């Protein structure tokens, strides 16, 4: 690139992914042997940034003995009328990309755990000062981010100074993460989809939003954004959110459209925040299963590592067979543990107000995110073993689901309809109405002839269903 004529080595995207072997390295910055290291981007006021400035605090490359490992802090400070603090994370991520463009420079990881190496060959060619690295960074930032009006780069190699700033950087990362956790589905224009699991579940499409992690727990909205940018046609892709059709259940026109495409028409609608109706599909990899417990009209959540029998008498593996495969199964819902920390967790079904049981291990991981008024009302495997015990526990604790029991019991008595895919779970009235909507129903006990009723796209409200054997009296 001609913009790097004064840099002693080549600079270009071709060198991204270059590794410097220990035998070929001149110096190592950070890495496993060095405790204090970091990189940080800050948005500053214009008067705080000297445009094009490169500051080195501590020894420069040429002052460092060959073959040694030293601490390094990299601080990129930018200013611009349209720059906001929210962009710091994105700008910081580019330090990795841009420094890797330098032929003979390796950069791994991020934040407080960076690992860089400079090759002997680059040093021999004259890359003997961090000034060169600073120039490359400044030029690439300006080329890629026109909104950056001023930029200065500081390299810190002085061990004491790196240590001091390291602790400051940690606080900034923490504050940034806290803000990220506060990001809401309403606050973004696009979600991300993932079809990595389609080899197991061909109709499964994970919809990853700021408030709904991927089912496997591996991919946050931020990971989705990063992956889709690197490889837009890859298995992790953008989903323009479109119009919000139903804020409570979490239905978005853009999600419906993309999921329909990517599931090859198998899934037409998705409600992100519910376990009923059009729940998010489940692959095979979910970290946990939300399962409906009809006897108490509440949800249990069991995770993959739970080897015992859940409160409903079923093992994780048994329920996983019912849940997975890329289908929309009422009352069985694959989720990540992280989603349990989200305010959108089963929002349409009442959220934590409806959760009655989870293994102690899960409870411990998420308890800080359970609304305080329900926190001591959720039973664990240590509290109860059976549904009967659960019922007593919930009554004793005054769990909100208890209020739902009486009216439901009175109305529902004669119903005995089985929904396909719900594996014989008798659902209470409200939930059943949701099941019937757009879902085929079979196994309805009818005449001795026996036939299958399929209801498509029908909306049914049932006050009372009476089924009698044909020919019987009264």
């Amino acid at each position, binding site marked *: 690139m001609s913009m790097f004529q004064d840099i002693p080595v080549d600079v270009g995207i071709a060198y991204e992914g270059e590794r410097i072997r220990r*035998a070929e390295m001149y110096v190592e910055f950070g890495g496993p042997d060095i405790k204090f290291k970091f990189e940080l981007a800050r948005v500053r006021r214009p008067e705080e940034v000297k445009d094009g400035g490169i500051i080195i605090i501590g020894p420069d490359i040429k002052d460092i003995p060959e073959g040694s490992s030293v601490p390094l802090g990299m601080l990129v400070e930018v200013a611009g009328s349209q720059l906001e603090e929210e962009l710091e994370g994105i700008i910081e991520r580019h330090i990795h990309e841009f420094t890797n463009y330098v032929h003979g420079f390796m950069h*791994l990881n991020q*934040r407080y755990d960076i690992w860089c190496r400079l090759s002997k060959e680059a040093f021999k060619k004259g890359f003997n000062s961090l000034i060169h690295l600073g120039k490359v960074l400044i030029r690439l930032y300006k080329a890629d981010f026109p909104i950056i009006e001023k930029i200065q780069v500081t390299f810190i190699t002085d061990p004491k100074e790196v240590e001091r700033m390291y602790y400051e950087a940690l606080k900034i990362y923490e504050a940034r*993460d806290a803000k990220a956790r506060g990001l809401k589905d309403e606050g973004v224009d696009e979600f991300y989809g993932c079809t*990595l699991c389609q080899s197991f579940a061909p109709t499964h499409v994970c919809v990853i939003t700021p408030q709904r992690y991927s089912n496997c*727990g*591996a991919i946050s909205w931020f990971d989705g954004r*990063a992956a889709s940018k690197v490889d837009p046609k890859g298995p992790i892709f953008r989903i323009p959110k479109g119009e919000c059709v139903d804020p409570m259940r979490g239905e978005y026109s853009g999600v419906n459209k993309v999921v329909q495409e990517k599931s090859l028409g198998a899934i037409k609608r998705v409600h992100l925040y519910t376990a009923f109706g059009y729940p998010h599909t489940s692959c095979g990899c979910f970290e946990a299963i939300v399962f409906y417990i009809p006897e108490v009209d509440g949800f249990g959540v069991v995770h993959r*590592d739970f080897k015992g029998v859940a409160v409903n008498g079923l093992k994780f593996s048994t329920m996983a067979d019912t849940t997975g495969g890329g289908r929309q199964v009422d009352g069985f819902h694959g989720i990540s543990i*992280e989603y349990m920390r989200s305010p959108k967790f089963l929002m349409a079904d009442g959220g934590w107000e409806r959760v009655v049981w989870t293994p102690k291990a899960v409870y411990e991981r998420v308890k800080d995110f359970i609304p305080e008024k329900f926190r001591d009302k959720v039973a664990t495997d240590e509290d109860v073993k059976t549904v009967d015990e659960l019922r007593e526990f919930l009554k004793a604790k005054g769990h909100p689901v208890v209020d739902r029991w009486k009216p439901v019991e009175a109305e529902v008595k004669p119903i005995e309809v089985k929904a396909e895919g719900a594996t014989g779970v008798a659902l209470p009235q409200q939930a059943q109405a949701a099941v019937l909507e757009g879902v085929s129903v079979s196994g309805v006990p009818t005449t001795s002839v026996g036939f299958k009723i399929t209801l498509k796209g029908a909306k049914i409200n049932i006050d009372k269903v009476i089924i009698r054997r044909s020919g019987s009296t009264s």
Partner: protein
Amino acid sequence: MGRSFGRLEDRVIISVAGKGGTGKTTIAVLILKTLIEETSKTILFVDADPSTNAPVVLNIPIKKTVGEVVEEFRKTVLDTTELGVDKSRIVEKWVMEVLMESPRFDLLAMGRGEGEGCYCYVNSVLTSILDKLASNYDVVIMDMEAGLEHISRRTERDVDIMFVVTDPSRMSLETAKRIKELIPEVHVEIRRLYIIGNKIPHGEFESYASKVGEFDLQLIGIVPPDPEILNFSVKGLSLLNIPDNSPSYEAVKNICRKVRLI
């Protein structure tokens, strides 16, 4: 490394496969020794066999395997509260950390495969990380497990030469045959496939060659039994230090010459 970076056509990927017990790791390490002594190429040695024998044969104590990194990633990073980090970069750094670096070659032990749960994400990340890493070396030698699963799972790169190691047993030849038959089913190309007959006593070379022919396989060379190999193994010495005039090393060097690796 700058010498070769970006020049794809010069890079060679060698994989050594075969039935367990035929001496895959021994042959792979002797190929490594040949390349170290006869060339100036940079080499990545990948122990892709879950039993992780190569570090023992090379006498390089490993810190961790890639499989262990994957497990650790799933146990710790997935529950991270750091929302703003790019997880693939963490895996990349951890893989670099388990890479055992020595002056002439680097060693990466893959370790055992997956436990329960979802590996889709970490596997997809890992494939690209390993391919990126491999592209930094002139030569990659992969010590494979018996099947071809690893090729499908962990790399998108074509294999230039696959050596299938066989021994006097008929079973080892049947395994070799099955490997050959599986090749069209894996998604990467395997350009050349050769049989190396290992531990074949002198005097039986010709009859062995015709037996290999019966299986419709191409024999590239024979390695005689070598007491020195056992001796090194018993003493726990690196097989790289086996004397240059050992018959096994000379045989492997010859094979490398035949396929133009040196």
